[in-house]
């Protein structure tokens, strides 16, 4: 009986630990956004030789995120395939460039 109670307590502690760490991870993970951008895709996104990122998509995303309590970093990609792969794998959370979708939602 004592053993069972011990395992029950340990289980509950483990459960809390798991949820807690997940929440903590989520909060930490959500604090910082990695934005994938195409380097040679003006006027959507472009990376100058000086390292300055510009473009319509970049401006929109940066202005939107400046108003939010999160930080962000730009991750440059020179080709679409690697950018999309990184996005699908969650290496970057946003993807900016001349990526298209059907206009009719």
């Amino acid at each position, binding site marked *: 009986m004592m053993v069972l109670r011990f395992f029950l307590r340990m289980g509950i502690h483990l459960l809390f630990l798991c949820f807690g760490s997940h929440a903590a991870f989520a909060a930490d993970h959500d604090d910082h956004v990695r934005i994938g951008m195409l380097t040679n895709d003006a006027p959507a996104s472009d990376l100058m030789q000086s390292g300055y990122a510009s473009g319509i998509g970049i401006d929109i*995303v940066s202005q939107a995120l400046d108003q939010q309590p999160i930080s962000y970093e730009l991750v440059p990609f020179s080709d679409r*395939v690697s950018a999309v792969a990184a996005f699908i794998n969650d290496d970057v959370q946003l993807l900016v460039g001349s990526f298209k979708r059907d206009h009719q939602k």
Partner: protein
Amino acid sequence: MMMSNYLLVPSKEITKNNHHLMATSPYLLDEVKIVSITKPTSWIVSMVTFFMPLSVSFVSALSALGIILTYSLYLSERYIHPRLKHAAPHPQTGVISLRIIHYFFWQNHRFRPYSRSGQWIAKVWMITLILVAFIFCCMVSVSLYHFHHSRDDLGDLSELQGQSVGILYGRDQKYLQKLKAQPVVYQEAGALFHALAAHDVSYALVGRSALERYVLQDPASSSHIRVSQRHFGYDAWVVLGHKNYGQARLGQPLIEVLDAFIDHVQSSNLAHDICARHTKIPSLCIF
């Protein structure tokens, strides 16, 4: 914004198979153009190329008519007109033509047909000359119009049939396959334009903004680039994001925050300002 005649480009390739990924509302509608490179030709060469087949038949018909009219005039005036009465009995036709033209036009209109038939032939001759001048002017105008407009316009989509068409990665290829064109996929617009200039592909399907950038980088290219007047669909540019990312921190998914911001910039003048900083066609951001 003008609606397209053909919609080539709906593309949800990325989000279609990944349901945890989403796209924002479009922030720019980029017109899709069909571009080809023409061989650089001078105005004169192009003019002659177009003009030559017409001018051969035109000059032939004109020469025949001129010979008939002048010879008829000569015959009707040969024994009546005081100047021609003393001419040789059967001079060569070419000499007679030149002589009559010379008398008629350059000798202060001394030549007046004496016979009634001669007077009628002279009137027909003058009217014919006016018509010929008119037709000649029309031919020059048409050839000039052809020279300028054939460079800009792609006559028909059937031109693409059997041709290699360069496209960017992510573009829907079904429509091109229906046209029996051969799509060739490129990773970025620079490589696509390079392939087009090197004649690796006959045509390119590109957005207007990419085309504008290419011409801006290489102004010399604009002289031999041929762009469709109509646009064949449009690309709706979006930001892609993970579906629930940001929920814990922001109280709503980040993608929704971006969506709301895009709606805001489009309803205000901000979209125009942002676009004007990066493109010469800021109207693409307002719709």
